[in-house]
């Protein structure tokens, strides 16, 4: 869905107060259940460059400074990190990692973090924002990926036909929100009644007894990621 559709579907006309509404970035506050949440989003297949990282980190830190315990919801539509020499010159990975650290500090200060992919989420653009949340969601027509299959075939030298055939059975490499659901990254994929789903998701994070990352376990329960949980356990306690 587009950003307009997203805001309408999740908040209607009354429950959303924009603060910034630029082509590729937006923030503001919105009603989620019986709480007010800070909304931080990317739009229009945004490229995540140095400047966008700083804006998002500023928004997270402002919430932490001024609004104790307030939930933060990321709404994401990004084509990934900006692929420019200039951003790399300045150390884009450092800016992106900074955003991840800001998310962790917010979590520790008691801010529930949720993320919803509503457009596209591609690798680097998703890692330090949406993937840092306590609970990650996507809407049904969204896309999450590292790379499309033709490009993957070119780089790995595995024939495209073979990748396409394997993708029907394995969630492990091909694009799609359902794959990320099966592998335990997404808690759920939403296809309607969005305001209620988001309020329930927030209540679930609020009620959780710990911040423990349970995605490996979820991936195993859903049959999409069987190796990770037992290996991590063996290294942690073996």
């Amino acid at each position, binding site marked *: 869905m587009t950003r307009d559709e997203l805001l309408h579907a999740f908040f209607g006309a009354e429950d959303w107060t924009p603060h910034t509404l630029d082509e590729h970035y937006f923030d503001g506050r919105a009603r989620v259940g019986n709480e007010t949440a800070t909304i931080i989003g990317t739009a229009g297949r945004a490229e995540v460059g140095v400047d966008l990282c700083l804006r998002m980190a500023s928004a997270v830190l402002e919430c932490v400074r001024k609004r104790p315990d307030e939930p933060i919801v990321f709404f994401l539509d990004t084509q990934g990190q900006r692929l*420019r020499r200039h951003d790399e010159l300045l150390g884009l990975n450092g800016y992106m990692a*900074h955003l991840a650290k800001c998310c962790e500090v917010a979590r520790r200060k008691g801010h529930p973090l949720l993320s919803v992919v509503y457009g596209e989420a591609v690798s680097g653009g998703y890692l330090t924002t949406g993937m840092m949340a306590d609970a990650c969601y996507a809407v049904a027509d969204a896309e999450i990926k590292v790379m499309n299959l033709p490009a993957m075939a070119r780089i790995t030298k595995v024939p495209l036909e073979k990748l396409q055939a394997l993708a029907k059975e394995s969630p492990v490499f091909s694009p799609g929100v359902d794959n990320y659901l099966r592998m335990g990254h997404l808690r759920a994929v939403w296809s309607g009644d969005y305001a209620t789903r988001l309020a329930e998701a927030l209540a679930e994070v609020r009620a959780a007894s710990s911040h423990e990352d349970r995605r490996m376990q979820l991936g195993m329960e859903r049959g999409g990621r069987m190796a*990770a949980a037992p290996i991590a356990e063996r*290294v942690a306690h073996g």
Partner: protein
Amino acid sequence: MRKSYSEASARERVLGLLDAGSFHEFVPPSERASSPHLAQLDQPVAFDDGLIAGRGTLDGKPILIAAQEGRFLGGAVGEVHGAKLVGLIRRAVAERPAAVLILFDSGGVRLHEANAGLIAVSEILRAICAARADGVRFVGLVGGSAGCFGGTGLIARCCDAIAISEEGRLAMSGPEVIETVHGVEEFDSRDRALVWRITGGKHRYLLGETDRICTDDIADFRAAAIALTDGPAGLTLEDVEREHAQLAARWEAFSDCADGLDVWRRLGVAAPEDVPMLATDAFTAIADEVRP
């Protein structure tokens, strides 16, 4: 005697860094923890999935250590590789070593198992940030032949401190990827000098992205690791506020720069064109005068 860090295998690096005889590996290759996904794509597997995890001592102090093998699929992160690192971080939260040492040598997410790799990188990022907030210190070493790119470039910058060699490369997107998308005039990946001025160890040190710069010598990396293990642990609002101010200042100062040379000149390096040729000691002396 000098022994090249970049030319060594991950295992040689681990053994060369730690106190002699102190290394103990968790889930060693004899346990056959290989990727379950590579065979269906007719790819060879490694019995440690390209990641060594273990414990040892460094200058007498207990540490946990992980090392990526850049010679296996470019050190890329797959499901098992990533899960081993997550397990090591969990272990660190329980055991409280003096530090967790991570030897980076990776192009990022392994495309053959891209979704599993991406999720694994995000789990590592979360685990490191959480462990730091719990008081575990992380030290990253960057000097492997595959560099430190993509998701591993993010993991490295979530560590408390980084040592990099002059030959080390630390970035998000590799030059080849940028050239493929935006053309050779945006980033000529075959211009080695340019690649080093953008992603290389000296530039990263001058920017303040790393804490130490070493020669390509295992003994030098060991000395850096010992020095960096000593330091505060924690991840607080004040820490990220300070980092935010530094990163915002960098953006203000250099947002119109196109090349490392422009950045170094503006930092106050008197002869930026000489920087690539300077020996490490001479370079460090000049860099420490001007780096933020």
